């Protein structure tokens, strides 16, 4: 059944002209996201949209996985984004296993210059990952980025401050929120709310702060969805 589905999906992709994306292996994000990413990871040569208060952390986790190939991590933002969210900080990146020597920071004066710079970076074979902090990205803009990424071959991450219901050419669209856990490593709720593969849903992950690896975490907000521990099972049995 799964094989037939995969074969059908491959045929659809070929018809859509997106077969090129499959030639390169996707960015593997581990078993935690396997349910949401049937192809085994995030497609390279494609644009992915991340929004929400913890988008930077998820973007870096993806970038870390995608930088297993040579190439630069090109981070593009404009002055407004810099003021609102701060600069990606090399000491913090280095502490999480990302090599700051591979970071290229593009600091555009305004949104228009930023959009052009992002497109330039996306079309370059030198960029393994392009992070673009574009406040506005309509269908036309995202389509252009998608085409540029297909030329360049890198992975595009569109960082948005808010969830934008407007249509987009992004292959996947995520909402990334941190979970208020008391102690321990940060936990994220990753909601894939739009995907070209058709699979949608949400998972909760624990982020390893030294490697940026994503581990499956039992859901906290909804105890019923969590794997029932021995104590709980006993209660259920009694009830």
């Amino acid at each position, binding site marked *: 059944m799964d094989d037939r589905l995969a074969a059908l999906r491959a045929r659809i992709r070929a018809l859509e002209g997106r077969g090129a994306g499959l030639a390169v292996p996707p960015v593997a994000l581990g078993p935690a996201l396997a349910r949401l990413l049937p192809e085994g990871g995030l497609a390279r040569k494609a644009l992915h949209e991340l929004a929400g*208060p913890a988008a930077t952390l998820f973007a870096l986790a993806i970038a870390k996985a995608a930088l297993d190939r040579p190439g630069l991590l090109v981070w593009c933002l404009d002055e407004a984004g810099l003021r609102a969210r701060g600069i990606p900080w090399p000491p913090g990146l280095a502490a999480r296993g990302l090599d700051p020597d591979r970071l290229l920071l593009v600091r555009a004066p305004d949104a228009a210059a930023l959009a052009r710079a992002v497109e*330039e970076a996306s079309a370059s*074979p030198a960029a393994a990952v392009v992070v673009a902090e574009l406040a506005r990205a309509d269908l036309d803009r995202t389509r252009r980025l998608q085409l540029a990424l297909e030329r360049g*071959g890198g992975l595009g991450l569109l960082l948005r401050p808010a969830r934008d219901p407007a249509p987009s050419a992004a292959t996947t669209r995520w909402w990334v929120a941190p979970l*208020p856990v008391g102690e321990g490593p940060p936990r994220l709720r990753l909601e894939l709310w739009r995907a070209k593969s058709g699979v949608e849903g949400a998972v909760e992950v624990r982020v390893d702060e030294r490697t940026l690896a994503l581990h499956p975490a039992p859901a906290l907000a909804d105890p019923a969805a969590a794997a029932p521990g021995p104590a709980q099972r006993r209660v259920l049995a009694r009830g």
Partner: protein
Amino acid sequence: MNAAAEALRLGPGLLLTDARAACPTLRVLPAAPEDDARALEAMALWGTRWSPRVAVDGTDGLMLDVLGCAHLWGGEAGLLATVAAAFARLGLEHRAALADRRLSARIWARFGPGGILPGPRALDPLPVDALGLDAATAASLRRLGLRTIAELRRLPRAALARRLGLALATRLDLLEGGPEGPFVPLAEPARFSARIAWPEPVATHAGIEAACAKLARDLCRALERAGQGARRLLLGLHRVDGVVARLEAGTSRPSRDPAHLFRLFRHRLDGLELGFGVELAILEAPETVELPAEQPELGAAADPGAAAVLIDRLAARLGAERVLRPEPVATHVPERAVRWCPAGVEPKPGPWTADPRRPLRLFERALPVRATALVPDGPPLRLDGPVAGRVIAASGPERILPEWWHREDEKARPRDFFRVRLEDGRELWCAREGLWGEPDPPVWRVLGSFA
């Protein structure tokens, strides 16, 4: 002074009222010597069409070194005619002179009739003022009744030098073959350049773009023959109205790839004002370095060459100061821990210290907040201000002391850093500045975020 002014006998030193009497419709503007100098320098750029070596002469003249250039314009007479036609087209009154010696040419243009100096003796009837002497020497010459250059020449040079100063004698020597100082042009011509001149001006961007692509190809061919790669490029577009638009671009690695060099300029051509058209385009490589011939790389992904191309294109678009790579700085003060260098310069690689307490993003300006803590030295329980919320987890403190040997740290206070997690899950890096017991109470700031 133009011919119209001369006809009305207007001139320097005239009182404004007298000038108004002679010409009631006179428009008066205050003198702006700096603007004049700038305009003259622009004219000098415009003059590079005839010779690459052009200098500004005084406040109202240009000096061209035309050695080896004149034959391109049909000899010296042809060159002068071309210059005259160009000035006439701009509606500028001028007098051009051409001579073996710089001072002779200067005098012939300013005090003589202009044109090619027939011989050194032609200067004889001109007044001594033409030599450009200081006021004291000029006054003594007047007292002695010496009016023309011929009269000076007749006197024995040694006596002249003794009585009236060495400067005068040197000036006279200059006319007759004494050593001239070096000619200092506004810009030394580049060793590698390519040019296109059009008989009819080109006023479309498509035309200019095509020309630039051709210039890049020509330049790269010359670079290839010499085994050089360009580090810096200068594109000069000479407009019909005398304005020279100059675009500059740098490369992070020496290059002689015509497509790459052309792209450094292409998007900047779009916004360029072409006026009535461009008649001459010159592409120069003022800075080149050795670049041995190599096999062109085929389909190489993520090679250093591709990175250099990307960096150059972004730098050409945004400016080199906006395309940056980080360099670690050995300091504990977070604001100084990273130096952002233009990416074209090879950055000093690592070592980066991997301290897991450091945040992912650092705010450009720390946000002042109010904090509530259980004990004065303890972590905050709640933050209020631009970021607000109950703190559900905190780690710290990590004390970072100011570096007193830095000027900006003179008034800085010790800081205790905490990583706090708010009730909505956000994680922030905040610091308490100052210690309890000091005259000023401590203040809290949020410096960065972990997501």
